């Protein structure tokens, strides 16, 4: 009976995503999405990796960008589309249902000015992230930007210990609400830098357990194509 209720709860979880995310991040995420959208310039081609219900994508559309959302969940893709249509902005939105390691199957090199992703990549281990970063580097035009916001492992040992305790306490609500095991990344900026980006800014929240990293794809001279080694 308990298990059944629990399953039901999970089953309807996607519909509760938006508020579940808001609750789990104490409202921080909405603020961060607003900040990210402020970086968008009119006419930019933006890729939102793991677009979810489209809250960030719609914000970017409002800034007159062309937005491509990719997400592996059909339900989420439909939500993004629905929200964009409701805002009357669906004509500048493209959605793709596929996974994060498949980016280069869909988009050509240098096809985006900005790549954003919030609360998606934190689930993946370092090798996956490096893979995605390499792809992002190829997909961004030289001088293009990458903004990633996610849960990370805090910088200092002592905070890490407190964080581990907090995570332990949050584990059950997180599990019930989001269905997303948290694997906070250690050294997110390092992974991004290793992908060939120049870090522009790093901002931290909640005792450095949540970071927003803004990076730029370096402008290469004509001799080197925009490819990654």
């Amino acid at each position: 009976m308990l298990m059944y209720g629990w399953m039901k709860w999970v089953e309807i979880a996607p519909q509760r995503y938006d508020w579940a995310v808001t609750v789990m991040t104490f409202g921080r995420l909405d603020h961060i999405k607003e900040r990210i959208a402020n970086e968008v310039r009119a006419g930019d081609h933006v890729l939102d990796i793991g677009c979810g219900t489209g809250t960030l994508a719609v914000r970017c559309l409002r800034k007159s960008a062309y937005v491509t959302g990719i997400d592996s969940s059909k339900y989420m893709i439909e939500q993004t589309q629905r929200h964009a249509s409701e805002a009357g902005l669906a004509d500048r939105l493209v959605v793709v249902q596929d996974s994060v390691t498949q980016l280069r199957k869909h988009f050509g090199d240098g096809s985006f000015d900005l790549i954003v992703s919030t609360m998606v990549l934190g689930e993946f281990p370092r090798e996956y992230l490096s893979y995605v970063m390499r792809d992002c580097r190829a997909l961004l035009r030289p001088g293009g930007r990458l903004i990633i916001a996610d849960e990370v492992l805090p910088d200092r040992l002592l905070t890490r210990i407190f964080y581990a305790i907090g995570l332990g306490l949050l584990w059950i609500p997180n599990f019930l609400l989001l269905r997303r095991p948290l694997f906070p990344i250690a050294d997110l900026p390092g992974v991004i830098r290793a992908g060939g980006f120049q870090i522009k800014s790093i901002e931290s929240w909640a005792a450095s357990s949540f970071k927003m990293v803004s990076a730029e794809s370096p402008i290469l001279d004509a001799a080197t194509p925009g490819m990654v080694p």
Partner: protein
Amino acid sequence: MMTRIKDLGWELFHIFFRHFNFPCKLGLINVGTPGENSPVFLSGNYTLTVQRVLRKLRGIDCYLLVANSRGSNVWCAAGMNEFSEYDVIDAINVANLGNLVKHRRIIAPVYSAPGVDISAVKRETGFNIKWGPTHLDDLPRFIAAGFKRTNDMFQVKFGLQDRLEQAVSTAWCYTMTIALIGLVWPIFFFTVSGLIFFVYLFGFTLYPLFPEERHWRRTLTITALLTTAMALWALWSGWATADFLLWEGVLVAVCLLMAMDCCGSTPLHKSTIKHWLLNGDYNSHFSPVIDPSLCINCVQCILVCPCDVFAARRDAENTVVVVKPDRCEECLACFKQCPTDAIFNRSGEVKGDVKSIPNLEVLAARDWSHLKSEDRWIGAATGLRGGLPIVLEGRTTNAPTVPPRRAASESAATSLIEIGQ
């Protein structure tokens, strides 16, 4: 010795916390010293499964590809859209498997079939998914047989060990839930917890001895047995009537809890609480029937069904038919895998909680009135040929060829658990 103790400690820990997810690291694990021709096995990233598989693979040079099942066991995850073709594709991409091995074959737990669309994996990565044995314990035999499933490796079993683990992990969840009562009323808490453990262990250990759940028969039998035992004990030790009534109430509540757990503790389970309350059985909503004009005879449905629902026709025609629809436990693996949507649904309904199949509700509600004549295969005699169940045509009768529903398949999904590799 130390590893043995460590293994045992982990096993125990995981038995108690079976209903929680314990993710382990994703990626490719080298078992022994694999090379470019070594076999590749797939697993989800549930810690216990990976540990068990690695133990089974000891001494074999191979790769184990651990893909993201969100820390849950594969069967659960696949049924809840938490382990899909995308997770397998990601794992293949990141491991750069295509360059690592020469062949293009991955042996996957058949329990991933409700979630992993093998044609998508093939299209995106070039790798063919081949289904392994249903039970992880059969892996060594599967390998020894030249990566073939033998006849006994298809059906889901719900053996004593699975049942005990299921009983303990579920009872443990309930005792944790009522733990707060222990702070104010410890004696009551400990007695109730003891009772929960006892009822679950009793019910699950003796599972095959109880009658099948038809008109609440099993639940009533168990409740009556335990009530009688308690009444005798109460008489023997001279309980006050009020005490007896209190504990009888608790006992009935726990028995009810167990009955309802049997219908919904997993997303793959065959029934809903509502169905059980109204009908007194655990039959699934989904009831497959195949359209022979759409079936291309790929036999995927036979390969992925853990309940022996399908059989192939090999005499007058080469198609697959449904012979034992009442055994179905609605895992929807066949529905997910059928490349031509040839499988229709007699009931028009699904439980509605497997979400990795696009348009599930629409497909499951399609009109099947043109397939009424396909019911003639229900109960047909079957035999095994090369591991595949074949309809023995000409011997189709209404004779009692359908073996009594095995308790095992009836609530196999309760054991989603570890048999789900």
